[in-house]
């Protein structure tokens, strides 16, 4: 990482953290409110615009924050350049894939597809 990238990374990690404070508390509250709910109840819940928008924001920001966080961990512990490059690439692909699957699922529920 060069200086400019490092600063951007640092800032992105912190901005996503601030957003996650509220989104994560909302998730805890929502999951407690839906304990033991069946599939139809979850579909009704995430079929409403506000919960769907919050869920979409949560998964997008969480996987973004996770990708940044895991990158730092890998840079700390993987010292062989080739292995580090492979691990960083795997991290990016995995986080992107999970985020896109989650967003597709939220969209399916939101629009009742």
């Amino acid at each position, binding site marked *: 990482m060069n200086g400019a990238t490092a600063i951007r990374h640092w800032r992105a990690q912190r901005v996503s953290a601030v957003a996650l404070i509220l989104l994560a508390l909302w998730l805890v509250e929502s999951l407690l409110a839906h304990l033991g709910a069946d*599939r139809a109840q*979850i579909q009704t819940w*995430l079929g409403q615009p506000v919960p769907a928008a919050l869920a979409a924001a949560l998964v997008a920001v969480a996987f973004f924050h996770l990708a940044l966080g895991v990158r730092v961990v890998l840079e*700390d512990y993987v*010292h062989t350049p080739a292995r580090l490059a492979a691990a960083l690439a795997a991290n990016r692909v995995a986080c992107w894939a999970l985020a896109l699957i989650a967003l597709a699922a939220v969209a399916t529920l939101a629009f009742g597809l």
Partner: protein
Amino acid sequence: MTPAERPLSPHLQIYKPQLTSVLSIAHRGTGLALGVGAIFFVWWLSGAAWSDACFRAAQAFWGSWLGKLFLLGWTFSLFYHLLNGVRHLLWDIGFGFDLPTTYRTGWTVVAVSVLLTLFAFGGGLYAWGSP
């Protein structure tokens, strides 16, 4: 291998544990645990969106004792990582970085995350048992 030109993170095997270092590594551990939790969450969410069988499998897992143990771990991880994350953000804007304050806020984070975990998880178990 050529020696790294930047400072290395402390070697955990030879570094004497102190509250500060334990809490710091716990921030990392809980962050990674939440990452695993996020994968399970996508599993459950995909089930809700696309597949009855998948959704029922996920619900059955949360209901098992292993699933509940995982939920307990994630509940604590989330509260700890969130509160300690706030502590990080406060340091970044220049608050509380002197040693006495670091210890005080550190113990506060531990105590409050344990309390919130007991509260949320206990309340959840109670509500689950009596819908």
